[in-house]
């Protein structure tokens, strides 16, 4: 064992691009980097094909206009900005809306089999916050279809490489069950690779590469009631901070309105929004469809006021307004919470989600097969015959690595991020369906960005600083060398409870402050956890190492939640219940200075005039300050500016954005 501490015992690989994460964005990034001729590694924390993307149910939002020809990227952009309460990075929302259709069609050319319209096109379903049916889907297992398609595309590329180069791993290689614990840099601060361990034997490994794409997903495992798996420990968020990059929007955590609540062991497991998109309604213990009481002013014009109108919308969406069950997720989650607090909850402390009285049993089985299966097997509930009991569950983090919208580049040279681990795209609240499309659009862009970057440094590839490797190895091995410390499972369970109780769906300053105090104690405890056993497939050891990441992201969430004194999207302050136009102009940005997290305020990038022109002035008034409104052009242009004009304007916008990054 004495030789363990030496960096000689590290297995070494060399690549052009290392993608950390094998979900939708990671695989899409890797496919792109390989297409650009870059030797690419995919680092997967689990087995290949098990990533969290498989959990996505509803679909991928893309304005293909198959279900309603009025749909287009402008409408999708508008819905995304409304859903994010205008805090989104407008360039990201624009790119996403424009490119999502091509990314979805591409999947079909790689073998994906989406559900079809009567004309044989990709079918599109309704979802919260989307004006038209927009989600490409496969029943309620769209994420599985996406991950399998991308996985099989990687295999197809490997077959091509086997044929032309004699080795399937020549250009794209998957490292399954491998965890990265540190990014390593060269002496000038550029990314030089990634250090970690391979689970089966616990051997250490370094992937030397000039470009790293973070595609590690979210942070849900920091909370007790969550729809996320053990993998979601904020690894990429923490790796980015530790490497010197910054995070933004970390106060915005999405609590999905409908998680299972009974039995206790399944609490938090997701119930897809498609249940509501396909006609399911929310009722309280009095049988009342309570969502009509909770339509906020900003959405008043777009949602039905009576059950009759809401019900007509499913068959005649052009002449009726949407049911309030299809408000964005933050609104629905808060409304459910209010009903529960008012004492109108279902027997196990949630509310009822009913599709059984709304659709024939066969139709439910066809549209929602995996929900039927899940409730039957796990809760012994037949959703075709009785309502489900549901409540909010931690589902998604809007916050993440601050990136350049076009390339996914962070402020650290060579470090890129895409998907849930990146921030800005969804503003303060993500619309359902916008995640799968986000993964594809920005996964591709990050793969491209990384390939361009590799080309730019081909004359001087960075070399990993050996001292950094030695430190990384010492850090990774530490929990195994302690003999009398606490059990990492206990520390983790208590951390989850604390975050759930004190920085959950509804926040108050004294509680968030208390959480920050508690987090200091957790840090102390985590520094002393001890793990029995060796390095070979030892989950206790893996838990101990993940704690560092969860504590860092938990502190980011708490610091930003305390700072932002308003309520918006996935951040609700009981003591500041209103949405503030002044706060809309502000992003909260976190970075590490030594061991200390620093928070600063940074202005949001401006919305280009042609994009602003997509909204009525009366709507912008609900979000913007008087000064901002005064600056708006008096006569609004009739439609969006031409493509070429908008491209050139955005170029200058993102330049000024990157200049602001103070590092």
């Amino acid at each position, binding site marked *: 064992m004495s030789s363990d501490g030496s960096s000689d015992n590290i297995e070494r690989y060399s690549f052009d691009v290392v993608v950390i994460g094998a979900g939708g964005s990671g695989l899409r990034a890797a496919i792109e980097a390989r297409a650009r001729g870059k030797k690419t590694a995919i680092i997967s924390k689990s087995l290949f094909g098990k990533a969290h993307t498989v959990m996505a149910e509803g679909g991928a939002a893309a304005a293909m206009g198959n279900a309603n020809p009025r749909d287009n990227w402008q409408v999708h952009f508008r819905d995304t900005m409304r859903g994010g309460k205008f805090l989104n990075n407008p360039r990201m929302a624009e790119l996403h809306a424009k490119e999502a259709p091509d990314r979805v069609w591409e999947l079909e050319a790689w073998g994906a089999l989406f559900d079809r319209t009567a004309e044989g096109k990709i079918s599109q379903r309704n979802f919260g916050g989307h004006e038209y049916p927009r989600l490409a889907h496969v029943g309620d297992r769209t994420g599985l279809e996406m991950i399998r398609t991308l996985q099989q595309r990687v295999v197809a590329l490997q077959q091509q490489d086997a044929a032309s180069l*004699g080795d399937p791993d020549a250009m794209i290689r998957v490292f399954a069950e491998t965890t990265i614990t540190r990014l390593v840099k060269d002496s000038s601060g550029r990314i030089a690779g990634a250090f970690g361990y391979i689970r*089966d034997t616990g051997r250490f490994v370094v992937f030397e590469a000039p470009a790293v794409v973070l595609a590690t997903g979210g942070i849900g495992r920091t909370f007790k009631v969550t729809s996320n798996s053990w993998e979601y420990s904020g690894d990429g968020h923490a790796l980015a901070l530790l490497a010197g990059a910054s995070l933004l929007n970390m106060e915005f955590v999405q609590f999905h309105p409908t998680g299972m609540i009974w039995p206790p062991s*399944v609490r938090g497991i997701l119930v897809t929004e498609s249940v509501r998109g396909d006609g399911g309604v929310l009722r309280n213990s009095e049988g009342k469809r309570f969502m009509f009481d909770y339509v906020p002013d900003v959405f008043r014009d777009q949602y039905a006021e009576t059950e009759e109108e809401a019900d007509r919308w499913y068959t005649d969406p052009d002449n009726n307004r949407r049911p309030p069950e299809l408000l964005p997720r933050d609104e629905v989650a808060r409304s459910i919470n209010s009903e529960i607090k008012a004492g109108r909850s279902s027997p196990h402390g949630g509310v009822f989600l009913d599709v059984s009285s709304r659709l024939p049993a066969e139709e439910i089985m066809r549209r929602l097969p995996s929900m039927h299966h899940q409730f039957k097997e796990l809760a012994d509930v037949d959703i075709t015959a009785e309502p489900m009991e549901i409540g909010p569950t931690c589902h998604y983090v809007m916050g993440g690595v601050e990136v350049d919208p076009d390339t996914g580049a962070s402020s650290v040279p060579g470090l890129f991020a895409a998907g849930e681990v990146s921030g800005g795209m969804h503003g303060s609240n993500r619309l359902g369906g916008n995640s799968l499309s986000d993964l594809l659009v920005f996964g591709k862009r990050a793969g491209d960005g990384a390939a361009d970057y590799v080309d730019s440094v081909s004359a001087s590839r960075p070399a990993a600083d050996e001292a950094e490797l030695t430190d990384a190895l010492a850090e990774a091995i530490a929990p195994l060398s302690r003999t009398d410390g606490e059990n990492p499972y206990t520390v983790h369970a208590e951390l989850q409870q604390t975050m759930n109780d004190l920085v959950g769906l509804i926040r108050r300053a004294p509680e968030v402050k208390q959480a920050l105090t508690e987090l200091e104690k957790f840090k102390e405890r985590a520094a002393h956890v001890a793990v029995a056993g060796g390095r070979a497939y030892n989950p206790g050891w893996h838990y101990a190492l993940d704690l560092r990441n969860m504590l860092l992201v938990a502190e980011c969430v708490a610091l930003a939640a305390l700072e932002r004194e308003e309520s918006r999207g996935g951040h609700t302050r009981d003591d500041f219940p209103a949405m503030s136009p002044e706060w809309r102009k502000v992003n909260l940005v976190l970075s590490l200075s030594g061991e200390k997290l620093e928070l600063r305020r940074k202005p949001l990038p401006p919305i280009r005039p042609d994009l602003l022109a997509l909204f009525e002035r009366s709507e912008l008034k609900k979000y913007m300050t008087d000064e901002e409104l005064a600056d708006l052009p008096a006569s609004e242009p009739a439609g969006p500016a031409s493509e070429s004009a908008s491209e050139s304007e955005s170029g200058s916008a993102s330049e000024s954005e990157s200049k602001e990054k103070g590092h």
Partner: protein
Amino acid sequence: MGYKAKFRVWRGDAGTGALQDYEVEVNEGEVVLDVLHRLQATQANDLALRWNCKAGKCGSCSMEINGRPRLGCMTRMSVFSPSETLTITPMRTFPVIRDLVTDVSFNYEKARQIPSFTPDASVKPGEFRMMQQDVNRSQEFRKCIECYLCQNTCHVIRDHAENEAAFAGPRFLMRVAELEMHPADTADRRDIAQEDFGLGYCNITKCCTEVCPEHIKITDNALIPMKERVAGRKYDPLVWLGSKISRRPKSEGTPVAVRPAAKDAT
């Protein structure tokens, strides 16, 4: 509810191992995976097991519970009596890495040998037109969560490692069927299904279908129709005559199974 359950869990690695006895608390509504997690958190911190979604969607927590291949997350404790001892062992067909974790790389190798989706190159993305009734069958097979319980249970390889080279197993024969029935795929994999992936080894005992947590009718909807297609090709007199007269190679119109070069040891 709330009682102490008796669990016998296989602990060990590739070299040696044995069943170990534990008593673990069980609460109302729990599944086997919950109890194993409690065991891990309280008594056996280093117990190796795979899991991800805890909702039957990722296919990670495959194991054998009282000898039956199952997902730990979809096996409710209420189906066992509180006095029963549950024996939890790793999937038997695959080599053990540690405790309940097995080396399933066999499956990834087979996946890499099947010629991929081959669309008509002239159809551009966005221009595919497929009717729902034509995609239903392949969609059923694409429900597969790759838990490999069917691979684990198939007697062709369960007790006969010597067959592994010549037999892809139900999951990957179903993948061949999925591509064959994909309305936009143009390749013909019938010959290689038989000759390279060992379709003929399957004698339709339906064990795979029985253990499938997604309830995919693997045997009835994938394997038997594939056998019929292969037989149809083999005994079609025109195909037979053509192959004799023109002496064309068997691979014509049929992709060859992709055999990757041997990988380096790492």
